[in-house]
């Protein structure tokens, strides 16, 4: 996917901030998806992603195998998420930056209202009802731009060979839940439910 991370990493290590920005644009979507996959709140996901980028800045000169940078990033953000999870739920700040209460991951009912198509909304709601491992895998697979299996394996700490079969099983389950959801859903008015 995208430009060769080795060349970008070398350029960034030599001080080229535009190369750095390309790396950020290329991989922040993946890092964000991983953090969301681990059910981080907006604030915690932002912390995990930012700490990952700060770690890369620290290690710009010492990434052993630059071609595996995406895997390094995925591993680093996963570790940061686990760090946050194991630290336990941190105190809720009185306000977020925007002054609104933080929406904990998913809140599928709410966010689904942003989607135009009922099928999209049903799929997003179904994501929230998936077993943990499936939800995590799918949330990472749907990162933008699309991650490679090697990156997904690093993000989830699972063997590459098991991603394909697990993906198939999880997607079948997602279809099943979304189908049932659509069958049950009321035919809501076109204006209904928007935040």
């Amino acid at each position, binding site marked *: 996917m995208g430009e060769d991370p080795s060349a970008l990493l070398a350029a960034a290590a030599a001080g080229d*901030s535009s190369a750095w920005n390309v790396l*950020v644009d290329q991989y922040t979507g993946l890092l964000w998806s991983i953090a969301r996959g681990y059910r981080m709140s907006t604030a915690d996901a932002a912390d995990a992603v930012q700490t990952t980028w700060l770690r890369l800045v*620290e290690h710009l000169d010492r990434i052993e195998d630059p071609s595996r940078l995406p895997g390094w990033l995925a591993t680093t953000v996963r570790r940061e998420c686990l760090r946050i999870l194991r*630290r336990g739920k941190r105190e809720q700040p009185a306000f977020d930056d925007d002054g609104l209460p933080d929406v904990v991951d998913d809140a599928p009912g709410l966010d*689904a209202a942003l989607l135009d198509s009922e099928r999209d909304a049903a799929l997003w709601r179904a*994501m929230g009802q998936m077993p943990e491992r499936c939800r995590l895998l799918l949330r990472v697979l749907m990162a*933008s731009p699309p991650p490679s299996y090697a990156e997904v394996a690093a993000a989830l700490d699972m063997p590459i060979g098991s991603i394909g079969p697990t993906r198939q099983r999880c997607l079948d389950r997602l279809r099943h839940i979304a189908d049932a959801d659509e069958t049950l859903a009321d035919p809501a008015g076109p204006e209904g439910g928007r935040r």
Partner: protein
Amino acid sequence: MNDDEVLIAQLRRIGDQVDPPPQAVLEAARAAFLMRRIDAELAELVLDSAVDAGSVAVRGGDTDAVRMLTFESGAVSVEVQVTDVDGLRSLLGLVSGASGPIEVETAVGRRSVPVDSLGRFSIGQVPPGTVRLHLTADDGTAVTTSWVGL
């Protein structure tokens, strides 16, 4: 594309719509590059009781638990004990191989605290978020710790 790939692409489109990385996260990531310290030696986080096994900290939802961090570079080691005080972090530290004041850097700025003759230092009222420390090794080398989320 087979059905599964079509569905993944549909999910990606949904994710782009309802849960993309916030603009502030992208901007902070770009700005992280400006935090680079080429002149300083990195003291890596080698132990974090919140993550590493065999830790001294009590886990399991005990919010009063003390968190222990250890940073090490070639010549310098810094141990920091982190506690929560009214939603802010309080740091008690012990440094060896370095002397002189220690600077604590957070997202909002920097602050300098003294180190006593035994290498002890204390930093109160640190806002939650990423933090790193700057210090000077006994041989004059500038040392910066890894960023750590507190």
